[in-house]
């Protein structure tokens, strides 16, 4: 019906279906994004009725803002550790929970639940655990590792964030890996068994190569979430102690809304966007090459 009509007819039909979504997408994503880029060329402070055009000055400020780059490096470290740990844990959980364990659906649901709790709430819950529950236990059982609040020490606060992040996302990624594992065809696994492959060989030569698409998705998701972390950062450590765990998103937010430097804040957000886009696109591009057919 659509093929024999002219261009306008086809376009009209498409607009009928995609129009509303397209409108919403333009209005809440594209327009603000472009307006944000425009703001990077001004020195607006968030409230004044006027603002001046300052050219690329804000971008120079971004490159001179050593704190921004410091928190970016910290974020890189955080992303690296969380991506490795989330995916390792998620894969192991998924592998264990597809091996026919008793009550495995219950376990799957249990591990997935942290993901249903919002980051802010989760941060407050864990803040209580780290600064009250663990300290209390540490004192009662005289276990020096938990004697003082982890959140009061720059290094431990960083690891506290990692623990909570891994706990939150491992279950989510596990679901994706479970789906991947169930899609590994039984016939080739059986063939491998008949050929006498050990459990480890099967995992290495059969399962892992066939799971590459799942890995791509999971690593992409954990990368992107790691870079964008904000809610957990603000509710668990507030960037403290003394700004030592301030991730890059939080720095950008504070630049714009606390220091009231919208121009520089927006410019930093845009630079961050570019960096994250490059990293994630590169990840997807290179890992696509590792995909194999069964």
């Amino acid at each position, binding site marked *: 019906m659509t093929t024999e009509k002219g261009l306008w007819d086809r376009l009209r039909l498409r607009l*009928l279906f995609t*129009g*509303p979504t397209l409108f919403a997408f333009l209005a809440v994503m594209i327009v603000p994004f472009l307006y944000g880029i425009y703001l990077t060329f001004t020195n607006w402070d*968030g409230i004044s009725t006027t603002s001046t055009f300052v050219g690329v000055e804000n971008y120079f400020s971004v490159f001179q803002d050593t704190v921004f780059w410091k928190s970016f490096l910290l974020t890189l470290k955080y992303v690296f550790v969380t991506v490795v740990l989330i995916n390792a844990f998620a894969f192991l959980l998924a592998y264990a929970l597809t091996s026919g364990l008793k009550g495995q659906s219950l376990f799957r649901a249990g591990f997935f639940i942290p993901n249903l709790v919002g980051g802010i709430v989760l941060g407050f819950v864990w803040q209580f655990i780290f600064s009250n529950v663990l300290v209390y236990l540490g004192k009662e059982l005289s276990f020096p590792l938990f004697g003082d*609040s982890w959140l009061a020490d720059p290094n431990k606060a960083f690891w506290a964030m990692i623990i909570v992040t891994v706990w939150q996302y491992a279950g989510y990624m596990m679901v994706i890996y479970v789906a991947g594992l169930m899609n590994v065809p039984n016939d080739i696994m059986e063939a491998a068994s008949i050929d006498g492959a050990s459990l480890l060989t099967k995992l290495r030569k059969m399962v892992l190569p066939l799971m590459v698409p799942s890995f791509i998705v999971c690593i992409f998701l954990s990368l992107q979430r790691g870079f964008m972390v904000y809610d957990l950062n603000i509710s668990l450590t507030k960037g*403290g102690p*003394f700004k030592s765990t301030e991730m890059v998103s939080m720095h950008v937010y504070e630049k714009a*809304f606390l220091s*009231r430097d919208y121009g520089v804040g927006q410019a930093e957000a845009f630079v961050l966007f570019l960096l994250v886009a490059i990293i994630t696109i590169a990840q997807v591009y290179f890992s696509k090459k590792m995909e194999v057919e069964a």
Partner: protein
Amino acid sequence: MKTMKWMKVLALSLAVMMFVAACGKNEQQESGSGVKITLLNSKGEIQSQLEAAAAAFKEDYPDITLEIIPVPAGQSPFEKASALYASGNPATITMLDTGDVEKFKDRILDLSGEKWMADAVDRSTSLTTFDGKNYAFPLAIEGYGFIYNKAVVDQAVGGSFDPATITTTDALEQLFQKIEASGKAPLIVSPMDWSLGAHYLPLAYAGQSSDPAAVARFVEDLKAGKVDLASNSVFNGLLDTFDLMAKYNIDKKSPLSGTYERGPEVLGKGEVGIWFQGNWAWPQISSFDTASGQYGFLPVPVSNNADDFGNTQISSAVSKRLVLDKEKNTAEQQAAAKTFLEWMVYSEKGQDFLVNQANIIPAFKNIKLEAKDPLAKSISDYIAKGKSEESMSTLPADHWAKIGASMQKYLAGAADRATLLTEIQDYWKTVK
């Protein structure tokens, strides 16, 4: 077939139109019977009192409905107010911090001609006066210093404690030692960045001189990078006192692990004698109170000479201001908002709300009601005796966070005094 398709197109476009129309429909539709005004409240602890005040106001002025909108916890008043302006829907009355008023001055009403201007206490409107016009209503005076639990310090000094005896750093240390000897912890230092960065350290700016103009000049010099803090006696004196606080801190083993909530608990229960905080903490302290409401303030000494400025003065200032929008609110709404301000200052119910319900120290000479809460009373006493030091209320917006972090580092022993002072100097050089 053809008609079906047109029906679909019609239905869809109708849906889109309704959606768009729903978005655009936020113009106030005043039914002739009265005026509806809104107040953006950024003082979360008095939300329910404000709502009660709005109800009481309605009894006196049945035509005016006042709705109180809270600023969500964790958001700054500036953020919320600017977001409301950006959406074209500002509150009629907005409660701002002193330092923010200037940014809004193109959008808010000049209040210089109001009746209450004549009764406002000295200097309460000077910081919101630009080009000779005052733009804000001073809502609350707040002060801070060392809050003492009288039961604990009485026991420590063996008799009735006289706060006037603590006028030097040495006297303060002796008091700490006596409290320690009595088996209690001397004090708690709450390590929040806002407490250290917005309240404690700014005492060093305010303590430079009793003349506000000289303090303003000092801040200008800091911005210009012309001040050497390492040789500044007020800074060093204040940090000497801070070292003492850190030494006698109940949490000195892990100084950064404390939270705000821990402060009122240990002070109220009498586990410590002293807490550095302000009169806004009374509701929390009172819920743990074991000293039958006997608390008061001590100034933070900055030297061993009792006559030095700051050693006998309590830091206080108008902290919250109300401003009236003139951009989106109608003339009737603006007039109604002015009526509400006047009602608070001159009506019996309004004064009762300020002093008795909301525990506010009002900035108006005509209000004679005496505060019921001991902390507000203590601050009012210091002000009445002329023993007050103007708090720094127009510091740059990110001062508390940046300097607060530097102070935390110093408190935790991760930075020495030279590093701290350099960080403060460097911070000021980045301020535009």
